[in-house]
């Protein structure tokens, strides 16, 4: 019989809660961990029929923020149900959303503040009080340097600290700390995620649009996998309508994904060649004059130049067939069908990592193709939708005279035009891998010595894990705020435990779209153990450090010195008081953000229902067991800009001279180096997502492991047969940067010269019972190649070798 560990027992603390130990545990424990894993297996808690509270929250198991209702019985969350009131998530919770309870009751959670006592990276920590943790950050210990010393030695250059954060509702709160602290070094997930798609659409259409998959009649989904990488409401909208039920779905993907399984047609494309496919589609619609001529004349800029580019370069379907491996006749057919359905036709923008070096240009070409169909800001096409306003709240951005600009190296790109050494443009989120590599190569304009990490796992989330480890080792002070003892936390000097999303109220957020709304994550339970929401963590931290580090500013900052002479120290300090952004509770801040605009009614609705939009009471109703109305048809915001792009010119921009100045093609073009090539005996490594796990953030979730215990290596069945590789055989994958091991899954769903496995597995932190060495880590082998425009990591440019072990 299995040993049961109920969630109630977890609360009572009868579970052996191992304090994070790391490799100091030693070999005996390591071998024993197998049994320990079994005995730690928690079970799900059956819902009861007695009294229960229902609290409206928002899910944080991935980035979608779907609305959930937490069922609380006797102080325990027994079930997370979908909240039907939210137009974005439309009464659904995916497997991860359902498994959110396990994030709350994960026995491996970080429970107390800790400071490093062992060697860096070995994960040997000492449990301390919050005060001791803050003291260690300010003044260091015998093991690591404190903030005071670093800032003093760097003469108040606030940029000597790097701040980085993962995506999330409270990222905003942490970013306020970064702004008040005065550093210019901010790195977030963008360059590892959707930087090129957001920017490509941004410069071409003036915004990153949504797709009206509820009304589109024809959808090309290329390199987007909505059946597995769930995005709400897109996933729910499209798959009810495919298979001859209203929308024709063309799936273009090197792999046969679940999206391919739901499509009307799947075309296997060579990785990284989607741009050639779009250019050829454009060639067909230009030569056959299928585009919306009136729309192009009025609303598309630079079309003539683009037309010449397409025609002169002879981007014919026959040309594209050789590059993409998609038959020319299919390209003709898709181009004609798309335009026949336009404007109710969507070339789906997608929302994913950069896969190839041409990704920015691919996005531009996709946006232009959509633009010339006329399907912009219109029902059934791409839509911008409306966003409900929120009142701003006070933030603190002091001016530190000694703080240097972001650590980038400027170079002259073209005559008189300054660019950067890593990439043409530096976005707000920066180029993570570019920054890391320059830091390791000592190519920084000044010293960066400390680092704050919030809800971010650089050890798992970016290519070349080994280099990330070197970076974390080199940093003199690493402070990590997290809920789980991740691989990155193992490299921290100070660990500050945050509570999970079910234990905190987060900043209220507005969700734009055809059916806009405002939603709020309400606290379901009080934080367990000694954990706190990031707002309170930063309140405590800033109370500790604000005055001491202002003294350093006073010492070096001549501007501040003269201001003090002119007024008083008290008055000047008020502008530098880091505690200011955190003095109010999140509940108070949220109330302030909605009350002035929408009244007390909105404040109450957000607390009670988690969702608010004007006239919600009038509009929202249940239509059937599975459907709800959020807005009446006539009140939906399909068109908000008169069918035009949102660029400054109000036109779709085909040709951008500013890009040329930065040595970037001013319009999408093909270059031979984009061709797909794999040397004999090697494979192109593809990575991606699926519906049961979110990157490395859910890797330790025992309930999700129930669905998929580990990740598997997709290898073509015939290739596997030749190599005598069977299902479950252990394979070592190696590239120029490292190795990882993973079990094989021979299948016909992948090409003979390609391999695939999902991202987020194979963590090295021994404090993660279920995730430790479970499956393969893609970033251990993906090479640190960045694309030239934003320095985003190109995830599908690595060739690898395999060996059965």
């Amino acid at each position, binding site marked *: 019989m299995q040993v049961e560990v109920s969630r109630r027992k977890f609360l009572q603390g009868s579970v052996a809660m191992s304090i994070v130990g790391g490799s100091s545990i030693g070999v005996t424990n390591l071998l024993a961990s197998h049994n320990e894993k079994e005995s730690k297996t928690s079970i799900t808690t059956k819902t009861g029929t007695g009294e229960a509270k229902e609290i409206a929250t928002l899910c944080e198991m991935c980035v979608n923020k779907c609305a959930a209702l937490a069922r609380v019985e006797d102080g325990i969350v027994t079930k997370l149900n979908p909240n039907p009131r939210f137009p974005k998530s439309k009464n659904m919770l995916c497997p991860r959303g359902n498994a959110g309870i396990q994030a709350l009751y994960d026995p491996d959670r970080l429970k107390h503040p800790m400071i490093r006592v062992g060697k860096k990276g070995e994960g040997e920590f000492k449990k301390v009080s919050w005060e001791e943790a803050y003291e260690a950050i300010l003044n260091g210990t015998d093991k690591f340097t404190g903030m005071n010393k670093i800032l003093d030695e760097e003469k108040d250059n606030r940029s000597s600290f790097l701040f980085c954060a993962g995506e999330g509702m409270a990222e905003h709160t942490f970013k306020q700390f970064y702004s008040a602290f005065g550093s210019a070094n901010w790195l977030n997930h963008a360059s590892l995620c959707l930087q090129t798609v957001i920017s490509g659409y941004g410069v071409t259409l003036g915004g990153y649009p949504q797709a009206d998959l509820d009304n589109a009649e024809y959808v090309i989904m290329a390199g987007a996998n909505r059946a597995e990488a769930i995005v709400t409401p897109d996933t729910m909208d499209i798959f009810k309508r495919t298979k001859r039920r209203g929308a024709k779905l063309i799936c273009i993907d090197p792999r046969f994904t679940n999206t391919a399984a739901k499509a009307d047609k799947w075309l296997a494309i060579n990785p990284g060649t989607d741009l050639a496919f779009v250019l050829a589609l454009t060639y067909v619609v230009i030569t056959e004059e299928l585009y919306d001529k009136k729309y192009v004349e009025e609303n598309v800029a630079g079309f003539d130049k683009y037309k010449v580019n397409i025609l002169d370069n002879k981007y014919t379907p026959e040309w594209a067939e050789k590059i993409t491996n998609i038959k020319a006749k299919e390209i003709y057919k898709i181009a004609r069908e798309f335009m026949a359905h336009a404007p109710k036709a969507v070339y789906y923008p997608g929302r994913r990592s950069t896969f190839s070096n041409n990704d920015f240009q691919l996005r531009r070409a996709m946006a232009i193709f959509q633009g010339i169909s006329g399907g912009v800001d219109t029902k059934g096409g791409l839509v911008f939708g409306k966003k409900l306003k929120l009142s701003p709240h006070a933030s603190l951005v002091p001016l530190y005279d000694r703080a240097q600009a972001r650590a980038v190296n400027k170079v002259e790109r073209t005559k008189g035009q300054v660019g950067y050494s890593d990439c043409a443009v530096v976005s707000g989120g920066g180029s993570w891998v570019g920054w890391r590599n320059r830091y390791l190569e000592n190519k920084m304009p000044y010293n960066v010595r400390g680092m704050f990490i919030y809800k971010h796992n650089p050890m798992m989330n970016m290519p070349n894990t080994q280099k990330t480890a070197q970076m974390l080792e080199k940093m003199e002070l690493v402070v990590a705020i997290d809920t789980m003892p991740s691989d990155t936390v193992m490299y921290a000097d100070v660990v500050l435990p945050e509570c999970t999303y079910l234990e905190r109220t987060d900043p209220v957020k507005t969700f734009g779209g055809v059916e806009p709304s405002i939603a709020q994550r309400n606290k379901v339970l009080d934080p367990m153990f000694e954990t706190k929401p990031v707002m309170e963590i930063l309140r405590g931290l800033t109370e500790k450090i604000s005055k001491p580090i202002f003294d350093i500013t006073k010492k070096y900052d001549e501007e501040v010195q003269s201001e003090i002479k002119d007024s008083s120290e008290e008055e000047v300090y008020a502008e530098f008081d880091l505690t200011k952004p955190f003095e109010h509770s999140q509940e108070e801040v949220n109330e302030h953000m909605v009350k002035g605009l929408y009244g007390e009614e909105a404040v109450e609705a957000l607390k009670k229902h988690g969702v608010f939009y004007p006239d919600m009471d009038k509009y929202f109703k249940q239509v059937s067991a599975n459907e709800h109305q959020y807005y009446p048809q006539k009140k939906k915001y399909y068109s908000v800009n008169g069918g035009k792009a949102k660029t400054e010119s109000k036109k779709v921009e085909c040709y951008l001279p500013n890009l040329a100045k930065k040595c970037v093609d001013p319009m999408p073009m093909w270059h031979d180096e984009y061709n797909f090539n794999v040397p004999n005996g090697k494979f192109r490594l593809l990575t991606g997502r699926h519906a049961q796990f979110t990157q490395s953030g859910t890797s330790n979730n025992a309930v999700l492991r129930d669905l998929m215990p580990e990740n598997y290596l997709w290898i073509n069945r015939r290739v596997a047969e030749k190599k005598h590789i069977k299902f479950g055989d252990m394979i070592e994958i190696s590239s120029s940067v490292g190795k990882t091991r993973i079990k094989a899954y021979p299948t016909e*769903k992948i090409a003979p010269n390609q391999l695939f496995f999902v991202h987020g597995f194979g963590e090295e932190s021994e404090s993660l019972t279920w995730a430790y060495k479970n499956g393969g880590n893609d970033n251990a082998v993906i090479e640190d190649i960045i694309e030239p425009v934003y320095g985003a990591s190109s995830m599908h440019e690595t060739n690898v070798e395999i060996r059965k072990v």
Partner: protein
Amino acid sequence: MARYGMALDYKNCINCKACEVACKEENGVLLGADKHRIWVGVKEIEGEYPLLDIVSSTFMPSQCQHCDDAPCEMVCPTHATYYDDNNVVRVDVDKCILCSYCMNACPYDARYVDDRTMTVDKCTFCSDTRLERGEVTTACQNTCPTKVRTFGDLDDPDSEISELLRTREHFSLKANLGTKPKLFYLT
């Protein structure tokens, strides 16, 4: 008193397995890949890359079919398997002796052993959780992103499920066995 059944718009299923987790969390089902009341059936695709047969990779959500002529009920020597007031096929844990006849008799492989009670367990249509609380959907229906399932009373002509079965073509699994399933797959 009702005669509960379920209609499945199975073409909507994307194999995300939200239903499997919702079922386990709602009903306190044991963790473990072999302990499940509901599941999504998938088989390996036919053909050779890139010429694959899309239709061969259909996702089939499945569970106990709550047959009107249930072989599991017929073979149970202790009458542990029974029809409750709503015609839902249930197992009485106090009567079950784990002879496993029912597991062998079920043509849909819908039964497994709960290691805590050492009795046979299966889908209950959330009878002792959601239905008992007066809720009108099952956990799997409620959570489904693409809304595959519609649960309801087959005896009520005005119910959504009755309307669906009147207006949409549908089939049952292994209909030739004459088990009269109350799960209906919409085409």
